[in-house]
């Protein structure tokens, strides 16, 4: 008895992601050179033996379809179960809440063969094995298990802090505007029996609720036994432009890179057929992550280059995130800049953001 169904929630705290999430949900943000944020939750599920994953669709679904397609790249293109899209059935112009979308797909979830539902808000970088979480859940006899990590530093932006007793029992849950260093920072991942999940969602939505956590759980703290499971590995929550910038830069550390990507549980993503990176004679690259398809003549330091980026001779790139297919032309200089996809920085342009306020260049811009 341990069959889990995964449900992926794509929207995060997008308010502080500004132009980066104009046309994509937080979970579709490009990350670490070749991934999108949702890959981390999705791959963790698949690597934990979950072969039935529902994706709750938001109103910006195109990048999501484009990325996930049949689910084949995650081994989720299956005759039975596999990847399913859970769209919202609400009419009108109103953007449905996640709770409403779940509620409208509740029939599907009710009829699944899963004993448990693992719901994950896919706006966080991690590589978690959910099998020990299930064991923990079964051992504690909890109704709901919530996964958290200790905040390694203050992180501004939407946060959920938890008070946890010595045995892991959760005494209090609070939504806050900042996660303080050392606090029990909820990662947006819940595990519960399918029936419990169905009950919580119905109770909350049918009584006018709009938020699963607040209306389904916090208001009914006394009705459920809630336990917290600590994930001790690497975590980076992406809830603002700054957090996005930092999350990418934290992966520029070969121990983090190794932990996330090179263990027994790989992070899967949509495959593309780019050639290996071509370093030319004049290239000078240090402390960087470079994805296939790049062609490098210039200098790159402390930066993440996504697939197919061209770095011309004389270019200097430092502390930057350069997304897919950007072209940085001769002698351009970039520092503390995030270039969204398909940006062209013309020759001799100098662009500078600040260490604590990166300059974001919107998708497709020519400068």
């Amino acid at each position, binding site marked *: 008895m341990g069959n889990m169904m995964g449900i992926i929630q794509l929207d995060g705290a997008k308010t502080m992601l500004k132009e980066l999430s104009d046309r994509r949900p937080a979970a579709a943000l490009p990350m670490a050179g070749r991934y999108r944020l949702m890959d981390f939750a999705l791959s963790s599920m698949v690597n934990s033996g979950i072969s039935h994953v529902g994706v709750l669709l938001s109103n910006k679904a195109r990048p999501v379809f484009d990325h996930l397609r049949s689910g084949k790249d995650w081994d989720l293109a299956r005759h039975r179960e596999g990847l399913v899209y859970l769209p919202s059935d609400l009419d009108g112009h109103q953007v449905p809440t996640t709770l409403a979308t779940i509620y409208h797909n509740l029939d599907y979830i009710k009829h699944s063969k899963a004993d448990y539902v693992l719901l994950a808000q896919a706006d966080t970088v991690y590589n978690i094995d959910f099998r020990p979480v299930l064991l923990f859940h079964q051992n504690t006899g909890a109704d709901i298990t919530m996964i958290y990590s200790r905040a390694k530093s203050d992180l501004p932006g939407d946060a959920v802090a938890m008070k946890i007793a010595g045995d892991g029992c959760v005494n209090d849950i609070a939504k806050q505007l900042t996660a303080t260093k050392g606090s029990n920072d909820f990662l947006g991942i819940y595990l519960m029996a399918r029936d419990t999940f169905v009950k919580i969602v119905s109770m909350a939505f049918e009584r006018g609720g709009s938020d699963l956590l607040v209306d389904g759980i916090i208001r009914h703290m006394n009705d459920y036994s809630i336990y917290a499971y600590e994930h001790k590995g690497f975590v980076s929550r992406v809830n603002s432009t700054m957090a996005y910038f930092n999350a990418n830069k934290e992966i520029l550390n*070969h121990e983090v890179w190794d932990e996330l990507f*090179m263990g027994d549980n*790989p992070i899967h993503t949509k495959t593309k057929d780019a050639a*290996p990176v071509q*370093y*030319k004679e004049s290239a000078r690259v*240090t402390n960087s992550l*470079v994805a*296939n398809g790049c062609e490098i003549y210039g200098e790159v330091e402390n930066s993440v280059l996504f697939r197919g980026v061209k770095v011309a001779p004389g270019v200097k790139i430092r502390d930057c995130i350069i997304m897919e297919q950007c072209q940085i032309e001769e002698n351009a200089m970039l520092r503390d800049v995030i270039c969204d996809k398909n940006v062209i920085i013309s020759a001799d342009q100098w662009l500078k953001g600040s260490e604590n306020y990166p300059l974001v260049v919107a998708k497709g811009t020519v400068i």
Partner: protein
Amino acid sequence: MSKTKCVAMILAGGQGSRLGALTKNIAKPAVPFGGKYRIIDFPLSNCTNSGIEKVGVLTQYRPLELHSYLGTGDTWDLDKSDGGVFILPPYARDKGADWYKGTADAIYQNLNFIDMVDPEYVLVLSGDHIYTMDYAKMLAAHRANKADVTIGVFEVPWEEAPRFGILNTDKKDGRIVEFEEKPSKPKSNLASMGIYIFNREFLDKYLKTDASDETSSHDFGKNIIPNMLKNQARIFSYKFEGYWKDVGTIESLWQANMDLLQDEPPFSINSSWNIYSANPSLPPHFVGADADISRSMINEGSMVLGTVSHSVLSAGVKVGKGAKVTNSVIMPFAVIEDNAVVDHAIVAQNSVISASAQVLGEPGAIAVVPEGETVEAADSGQQVS
């Protein structure tokens, strides 16, 4: 199965004995190339890019890794409901079993496959050449010439011509008048690329005749083509312009990898003529703070903390601190530990060059570290095999 214009048959059964240690456990077409690819990715990608959707791959020598790599053919978009990749190893019949005795015999033994696909033309390819070629253009020439056979030819330097099968053509229309295997005094410098288009019925007839000839070595170059010439068949040459390399030897395999590192590579693996290859789930490669990389190609999952110059690194390769890799080809998941030195070498999959060990080859004598081997600092020096 629906009617097919052209089926491709890729000869991928050769041992590749001249690649020595590199083909101890795997067939030559499965040997890694260019940091990301395997040799067979080139003919397979050419097929898919040329619109050929039914491809037979004839395997024989050490086929396990090759078979598992081919899988459903989805890597090359060849997982079609009406076509795709067909893996064709030798098999037993009611009257016993035979290995493929030669290139022609391999096709002969699979005439039932060709009957099933029912094509008008059969394109025969080898699984051990590096090149990008549009077979559709060659097929168009074949049809325009109303040829029985068209052979892909490539202009080689005159001094190298005696190493190849040389085709002497009628200058006017490219019709082949004579075929000479490794001539000492070549009359032309047009070498056969081992790429043939046959009219299916025509091929069928010759293969059946050849099969019953006990003196034949059942080889296209030695038997089939000379027999066809003898009978005045319409055999035409199709001149291929571009990069073509037989990577059958350690030297040529190394050289073909190095060719990719030129300022203007002789052919692009990053063009719209995609070379497809399996994409393992590996992250972008990591470059350390003290790394120094120039004129190199590096694939995903690698980690470079030391110096890499004029080299090709495959997926998952580690180059430790202070290590130096120059003029070398490093195959998947090999580890070059701290302060090790590798020069003019091919380091095969999963091998380890221990800390401070040295693997030093030189031009004309490329060092080879076989798959899975560990080179200790004590046994450093020249490792030519």
